[in-house]
């Protein structure tokens, strides 16, 4: 199968079940909003080393936020239900509450809920105030700058993490251009984030390592510099590879993002689009690349 003369390899991306939450951060202006959004989603590229994966789903106009100020919709994912509350409370408490003028609201009507404001409120040292409106409880926590408003509970739900595709290109210039095209096409889609820097990963990993203490190591089959030393998966004239990783609230969101990203990445200089998997033995969610383009519905759970 080819798109714009770029070969789409008949393979699949293997993604994992995760727990996710969506919340909205607002601030008085874009300066403080960017500061808070950058901080709360910082160092959250991969659960392997960061404990969670997080990113800004999209920026919100004032009329879309609960308090009528500019906002950012944030998605955060963790591998287990147990760890998500810890991650959100830690990040909202340390990265949003600390940032001037911010507030933080739950925006996921999940059946399951975790306490966030209900835990952070103790910072108010008995001077915190609860407000209940339209079925939602908010906490007003006094801080030196004024007041921090946060939802009492946040919704969580089962999600999908690690949807991906690899762009195999002739050279670094082509792969950088293709990856930016792909990110541009995907970044405003609802229900997904690209957790890595600029939406792109250059150091894709394989499971395990020759070092016994390391659970993951560089994906040697796709390192152009190792051709000849390892069993390479790259075509002869491939010079550089980048990976786009997508986390989403559900299969359909991830599949749609993969499809749009792949289409956008098929530009001059790109040789192949392939995907990362572990033979289908580890992940709960399989996204077949050829199925993305109309053969049958993608993202079937195993």
């Amino acid at each position: 199968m080819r798109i714009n003369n770029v070969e789409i390899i008949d393979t699949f991306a293997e993604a994992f079940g995760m727990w996710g939450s969506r919340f909205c951060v607002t601030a008085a202006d874009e300066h403080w909003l960017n500061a808070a959004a950058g901080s709360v989603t910082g160092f959250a590229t991969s659960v392997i080393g960061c404990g969670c994966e997080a990113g800004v789903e999209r920026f919100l106009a004032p009329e879309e936020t609960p308090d009528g100020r500019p906002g950012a919709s944030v998605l955060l994912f963790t591998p287990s239900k147990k760890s998500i509350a810890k991650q959100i409370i830690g990040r909202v408490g340390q990265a949003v509450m600390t940032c001037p003028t911010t507030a933080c609201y739950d925006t996921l009507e999940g059946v399951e809920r975790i306490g966030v404001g209900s835990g952070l409120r103790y910072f108010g040292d008995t001077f915190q105030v609860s407000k209940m409106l339209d079925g939602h409880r908010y906490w007003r926590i006094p801080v030196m700058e004024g007041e921090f408003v946060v939802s009492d509970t946040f919704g969580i739900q089962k999600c999908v993490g690690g949807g991906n595709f690899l762009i195999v290109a002739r050279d670094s210039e082509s792969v950088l251009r293709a990856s930016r095209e792909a990110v541009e096409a995907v970044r405003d889609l609802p229900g997904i984030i690209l957790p890595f820097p600029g939406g792109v990963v250059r150091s894709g990993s394989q499971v395990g390592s020759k070092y016994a203490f390391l659970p993951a190591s560089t994906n040697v089959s796709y390192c152009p510099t190792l051709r000849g030393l390892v069993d390479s998966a790259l075509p002869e004239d491939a010079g550089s590879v980048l990976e786009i990783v997508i986390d989403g609230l559900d299969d359909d969101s991830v599949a749609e993002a993969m499809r749009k990203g792949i289409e956008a990445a098929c530009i001059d200089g790109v040789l192949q689009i392939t995907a990362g998997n572990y033979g289908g033995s580890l992940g709960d969610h399989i996204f077949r690349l050829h199925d993305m383009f109309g053969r049958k519905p993608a993202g079937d759970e195993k």
Partner: protein
Amino acid sequence: MSEKNATVIESRIKDTIPVEAPCLRPDTILGKTEKEIADMTVLAGNCKTPLGELFSVRRSGDERLVVRGPLEHVKRIGQEMNGGTMIVEGDPGMHLGEKMIDGEIRVIGSLPDWCCCNMNGGLVRVEGNAGNMTAAALPGESRGMRGGILTVSGDTGARTGDAMRRGLIAIGGNAGEFAGSRMVAGTIAVFGRLSRRAGGGMKRGSILAFGGIDELLPSFSRACRYRPVFIDIYLRCLETLGLPVDASFMRGLFTRWTGDCTSLGKGEILQYETA
């Protein structure tokens, strides 16, 4: 008001004998036949009387209950109401919506004293004024309104929201003396003038004064001038309920007064600062 798909109960009362009709609520009326409704019992003076003797009943559907006619002496309309929609056309008697749990009452008229006391939930919208002790604690009770939303387009009398525990009272006009007295929690928003001695004895809770304050009790002290973000959330809600929300409130500064220091002192009066 359209009678389509509604059950309409019209008062034929001509004298001043008080009638207690707690059965006038959608969750007990709707779904019944005209005869079943007419056979329900109300208290006229000290006599148990069939509802049909004092009211006419017309039923074209069960979407809502409409109560109309001379209602000044009909008390306890919507008492302990637990769902559905009721429209009251005219000025009802005391105790409307008392201990209400859920549903919506729209009053096209004004409320007398002692309405919506000990309200637990639901929504009451009053297009006219409301009397003294609106949404207050009943005599002998330590807690008043425990939940729900009450909006009054006009003015309210004294001690509105007395001993309020939870919920929201929004007043489009002026609030009488001692609004939010003995308040424990909850929010009272006043778009007109907030009369003297508001929040007397309040422990916690918020009184939002958008239209100025006549005189604050000396047991309240000035904390600061700031922009409370949570007010924007309330204003958006109140705007949808038809309250006179000015766009300038959304970005405005408020002076925070804390009190009442004769009580716990963790309550607040937030006074909107005009430019």
